[in-house]
């Protein structure tokens, strides 16, 4: 591999596999210094937990999970839904942890959509109206932001924060739309006046560098860039199990588009898929390998039952779903497996090798949501066929998925991670030494 090749990190499950901790490791202890972390999907609903060896904990939502490493920049690409209000609070927490310059290291693409309080209120009102049929939304307005932009050409974007008059016009339109659809009497969620939003959003643009799309090209030319995905492939808007999905492309696709536009500066990217040694799902939807005993045994320190998202569920590793995720994502070059300490401590984890009568999930192209919904219905009643996983799942995972494991994680901090195969330095030339791949 080109030693400074960009790395694209995605979650091969339903999210929560540990992308943040993998990105943190790449930045803190990876084989190459990381110049910048780029977000390429989702928005402020991401919750990537990073714990430093000295015990500081931060839930990264919009800042890249490499921010604890001095100097590592964050770039919010145009595929990111930027929430300036949540960003301010997140920067405040980072400051409290001793990272005082997070905003100085941040750039935002002027074309990125803005999530506003009006999107958020609409999101919650809609989810409330669904009652028991919730889709597992985070209540942050992500879906509303994406849906509004599809229907309205004048959806507010980061660049508008530099033009108060235009920003005011566009925010007013979003607010009016919300009040029209959910009159205060029924929705019951008060929203701030447009003028107050304008004040906060313009303050954001004065404080954060707003950049054109080619900024990313320069980052790629300068040093190693890590693309940090949000959510998980099995929640993808087109490939996930409709309607329990997110309004976001969660595969490698957006990152690949950005790399292509940059003329593949930095060379071919390493596509890194992240998974736990077992499976989790936060919120409702199909989860074939769910196991109430594991849910009881393995509560997640950072994921409780949220008011919008529902409960945190745990189950066994699912090779069928993982193979499907790899297939729809176009494959991966390497895997990072987290929570191996749990597998080692328990020794009784299993792996689902097939569903009763189904070894492979059908892949649909071209946004056939009806087909995905039919698949989701089948999965709600599918029964897993298990094999033992053992205390060291890595060889089993490599064998089942046909992708090498490049990083093993045994705990929350960068110090708990091991690069699976140390690169061997090939000293055929006196200088400079070049590293080749390990065996």
């Amino acid at each position, binding site marked *: 591999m080109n030693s400074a090749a960009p790395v694209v990190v995605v979650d091969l499950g339903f999210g929560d596999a540990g992308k943040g901790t993998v990105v943190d490791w790449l930045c803190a202890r990876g084989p190459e*210094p990381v*110049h910048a972390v780029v977000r390429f999907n989702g928005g402020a609903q991401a919750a990537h937990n990073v714990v430093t060896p000295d015990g500081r904990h931060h839930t990264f939502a919009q800042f890249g999970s490499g921010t604890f490493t001095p100097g590592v920049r964050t770039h919010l690409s145009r595929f990111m839904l930027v929430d300036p*209000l949540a960003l301010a*609070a997140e920067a405040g927490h980072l400051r409290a942890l001793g990272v005082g310059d997070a905003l100085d290291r941040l750039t935002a693409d002027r074309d990125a959509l803005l999530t506003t309080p009006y999107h958020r209120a609409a999101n919650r009102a809609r989810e409330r109206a669904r009652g028991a049929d919730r889709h597992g939304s985070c209540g942050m307005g992500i879906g509303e932001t994406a849906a509004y932009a599809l229907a309205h050409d004048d959806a507010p974007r980061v660049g508008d924060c530099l033009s108060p008059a235009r920003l005011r016009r566009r925010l007013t339109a979003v607010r009016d739309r919300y009040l029209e659809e959910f009159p205060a009497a029924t929705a019951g969620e008060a929203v701030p006046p447009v003028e107050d939003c304008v004040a906060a959003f313009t303050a954001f643009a004065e404080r954060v560098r707003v950049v054109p799309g080619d900024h990313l*090209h320069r980052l790629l*030319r300068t040093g190693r860039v890590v693309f940090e995905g949000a959510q998980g492939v099995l929640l993808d808007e087109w490939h996930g199990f409709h309607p329990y999905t997110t309004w976001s492309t969660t595969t490698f696709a957006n990152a690949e588009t950005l790399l292509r536009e940059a003329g593949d500066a930095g060379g071919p990217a390493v596509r890194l898929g992240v998974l736990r040694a077992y499976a989790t799902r936060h919120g409702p939807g199909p989860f074939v390998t769910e196991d109430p005993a594991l849910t009881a045994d393995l509560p997640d320190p950072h994921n409780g039952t949220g008011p*919008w998202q529902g409960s945190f569920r745990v189950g066994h590793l699912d090779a069928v779903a993982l193979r499907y995720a790899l297939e729809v994502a176009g494959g991966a070059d390497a895997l990072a497996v987290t929570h191996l300490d749990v597998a080692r401590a328990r020794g009784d984890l299993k792996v689902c090798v097939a569903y009763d009568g189904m070894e492979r999930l059908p892949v649909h192209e071209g946004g056939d949501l009806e087909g995905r919904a039919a698949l989701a219905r089948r999965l709600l009643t599918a029964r897993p066929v298990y094999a033992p996983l053992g205390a060291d799942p890595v060889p089993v995972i490599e064998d089942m998925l046909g992708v090498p494991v490049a990083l093993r994680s045994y705990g929350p901090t960068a110090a708990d991670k091991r690069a*699976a*195969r140390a690169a061997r330095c090939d000293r055929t030339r006196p200088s400079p030494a070049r590293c080749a791949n390990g065996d």
Partner: protein
Amino acid sequence: MGSGTWSTDVYDAARSYRASTGASAFAYSDGGATTAHPDLDPHGVVLRESRDSDDHPESLAIAVLFDVTGSMRTVPRTLQAKLPDLLGLLLRKGYVEHPHIMFGAVGDATCDRAPLQVGQFEADNRMDDDLGKILLEGGGGGQMTESYELAMYFMARHTAIDCLEKRGRKGYLFMIGDELAYPAVKRREIAKVIGGEPRGDVPIEELVRELQRKYEVYFIIPEGAYHARSRKLADFWRGLLGQHVLFLDDLDAVCETIALTIGLSEEAIDLDEGLEHLDEFGSGAGPSVSRALAPLDASRSSLAVSAGPPDLGSGPSATTRL
């Protein structure tokens, strides 16, 4: 995944953005500073060290010192914005595996408030912090002479570099400027700016010889500077450094120029390969770099390595190096 951990209160956000003032790349200088930042003040510094570590077992010391006085016009500010890219360029194609980079600035010991500013040798982005702390003084004495000799004295006698001590490989020192040095480094100024009790003045020729035992020393003259086209300037530095005087017509290409100079000197590449790499990265710096380095390349063509670095990025491999 998650559920929106962070508050989205519109009033808190507005307050918070207003309260946290931005630090530009030139935060220190723009903040009205008038003296060297304590982190960069050489006074009382015994040694700036470039040491091997587990993460960087074969470190290579690289120092970049630039003139921040008035005749350089906008050059220092451009350098402050551009130099953060240097680390990535060096690592990108393996010209250097473990660079330790130090940034610093040169003024005029006879009249400036910060005649010398020196950061630390850093292996990661922390070097950018040092860059941001450099005071862009804009002073200088107006007599076409700056205290480069004081900077060279510091590099020769107040740095310790493992690449030399453990492996016998010289580090690299790049000075970027548009003036002459004083003919000798004065005992009085050493005592005032750096401290210690030197035995006497050190003539510049002697100092350069001493420095060259430790570092490959280069002087880069940027076109945009006031004295750039002066014959006297070129002759002065060529007299001291021979081929190692580079003329750069596009300051935006400064990192590429430094990176390729090191790549050539380390015999990792020849000029054509280096220019190909720049193309590959989509850098437009090629022509300027090519012009700046042509004399250097001609002088070492007999040494140039023709075999390109093995491409480790193509094709599927059994393992992926992250």
